[in-house]
C-alpha cells in the first residue's frame, strides 16, 4: 500500500470510489497511514450527521438501516454505511454479513457500504471505525451510519464517535432486571424495539418505567418498529432528525 495518500484523497474528492475504498483499507491496516490520512482531511470534517446503531445480534439492525437509508435517499441525502461484524478470536477470520440486508442500495451512487471486521476490538466496533467515519464525512456523505457488532450490554465505544446512538432491541430481550443493569441503556439517545409485531408493549413500558427511575436526565424516546414490514421507520427517522437538532443545539451552547 505505497500509493500516495494525497493522490488518493484527490481521487476520492473527485468521486472515485476505488480511491475512497483504498483509503479505508489503509486506515484499517496501518495506524501510521490512519494518522496521516486523518491529518490531511481534518480541515474538512464536521458536516455529516453521524448515527451509531447498536443492539443485540438478530434484533434487526441491518434491516432497519436498509429502510432508514431508503428514507434518507428519498430526501436526497447521500449516505455512508459502515457495518462491523466480529472477527474470530480463534482464526482472525470473519463473515461480514450485514451488507446482504441492504441489497436495494448496491447500485445507488449515493450510498457507499463498507463492511469491517472487529479485528480484536471488543467494544462493538473496530479501531479503524473512527477515522473511517471521518473519511466519509470529508468526502461529502450527508449521513454516516455505523452498525456495531451485535452487542448486549457493555459495548459503548460507538457513542464516542457518533452524534446519536440508536439502540435496537427486540421483544423477549429481558425483564426489568436486565433494564436496570449498567451500560448501553444509560447512553442510548433513542431506543427502537424492532420486530414489534412479536409484542413490544411490555418491553416499551418497562424501559420507560425503569429509565425514569435512573439518574438519566431524560428518558430516551422509545419507538416501536417492524423493519421487514416497513412500519415505524418514518417515526424513527423523525426522532433521529430531532436528536440531530438537539446535538447541534448543544454544540452551540458549548457542550
Amino acid at each position, binding site marked *: *500500500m505505497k500509493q500516495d495518500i494525497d493522490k488518493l484523497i484527490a481521487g476520492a474528492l473527485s468521486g472515485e470510489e476505488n480511491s475512497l*475504498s483504498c483509503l479505508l483499507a489503509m486506515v484499517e491496516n496501518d495506524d501510521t497511514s490512519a494518522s496521516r490520512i486523518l491529518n490531511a482531511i481534518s480541515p474538512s470534517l464536521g458536516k455529516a450527521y453521524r448515527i451509531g446503531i447498536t443492539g443485540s445480534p438478530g434484533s434487526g439492525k441491518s434491516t432497519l438501516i436498509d429502510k432508514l437509508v431508503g428514507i434518507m435517499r428519498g430526501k436526497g441525502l447521500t449516505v455512508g454505511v459502515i457495518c462491523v461484524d466480529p472477527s474470530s478470536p480463534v482464526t482472525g*477470520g*470473519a*463473515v461480514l454479513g450485514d*451488507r446482504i440486508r441492504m*441489497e436495494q442500495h*448496491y*447500485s445507488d451512487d449515493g450510498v457507499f457500504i463498507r463492511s469491517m*471486521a472487529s479485528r480484536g476490538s471488543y467494544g462493538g466496533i473496530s479501531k479503524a471505525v473512527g477515522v473511517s467515519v471521518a473519511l466519509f464525512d470529508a468526502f461529502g456523505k450527508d449521513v454516516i451510519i455505523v452498525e456495531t457488532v451485535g452487542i448486549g450490554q457493555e459495548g459503548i465505544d460507538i457513542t464516542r464517535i457518533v452524534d446519536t446512538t440508536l439502540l435496537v432491541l427486540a421483544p423477549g430481550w429481558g425483564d426489568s432486571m436486565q433494564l436496570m443493569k449498567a451500560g448501553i441503556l444509560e447512553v442510548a439517545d433513542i431506543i427502537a424495539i424492532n420486530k414489534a409485531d412479536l409484542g413490544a408493549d411490555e418491553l416499551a413500558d418497562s424501559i420507560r418505567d425503569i429509565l425514569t427511575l435512573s439518574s438519566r436526565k431524560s428518558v430516551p424516546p422509545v419507538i416501536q418498529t417492524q423493519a421487514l414490514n416497513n412500519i415505524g421507520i418514518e417515526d424513527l427517522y423523525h426522532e433521529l432528525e430531532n436528536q440531530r437538532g438537539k446535538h447541534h443545539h448543544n454544540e452551540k451552547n458549548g457542550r
Partner: protein
Amino acid sequence: MNRPIRVLIAKPGLDGHDRGALTLAMGLRDEGMEVIYTGVRQTVENIVRTCSQEYVDVLGLSLLSGGHNYYFPKIIDLLKEKGLGHILVLAGGIIPNEDRESLKAKGVKEIFGPGSTISDIANYIRENVRGEDS
C-alpha cells in the same frame, strides 16, 4: 503487516442455490479470511461495485445455472474497466469441463468444482494473493 485476506463470494444471475457459497464463506472464515457475501441473484454491475467498496483481494463467483459463459467474462471485463483488474477471480459451482479453458482464457484464474476442499481453495488463495503491504 499481516492483514487478513478479503474475499467477496458472489452469485450472479438467476440461481438461488447458495449452500455451496455459504459453506465456502464459512470455510474461508475458518481459514482466517474476511469474507463478504452478496446474496443470490446479483447483477454484474452490483458485484463489481461491491468489489470496489469492499476492497477485496479475491472474488469467488458461484453459479450452478449454466450461465457462467455469459456472466463470468462480463464481470471480469467490467472489473478491468473499473480499475479492479488486480482482483483474483475464482469460480465454482457446476462448470462443465469443456468450458474451463475458455473461461480461464477470459481471466478466471482457477475453477473449483464439486469435490474441491476448503483447504485447497484457501491454499490457492494464499499462494496467489500478494498482500500489497505485507
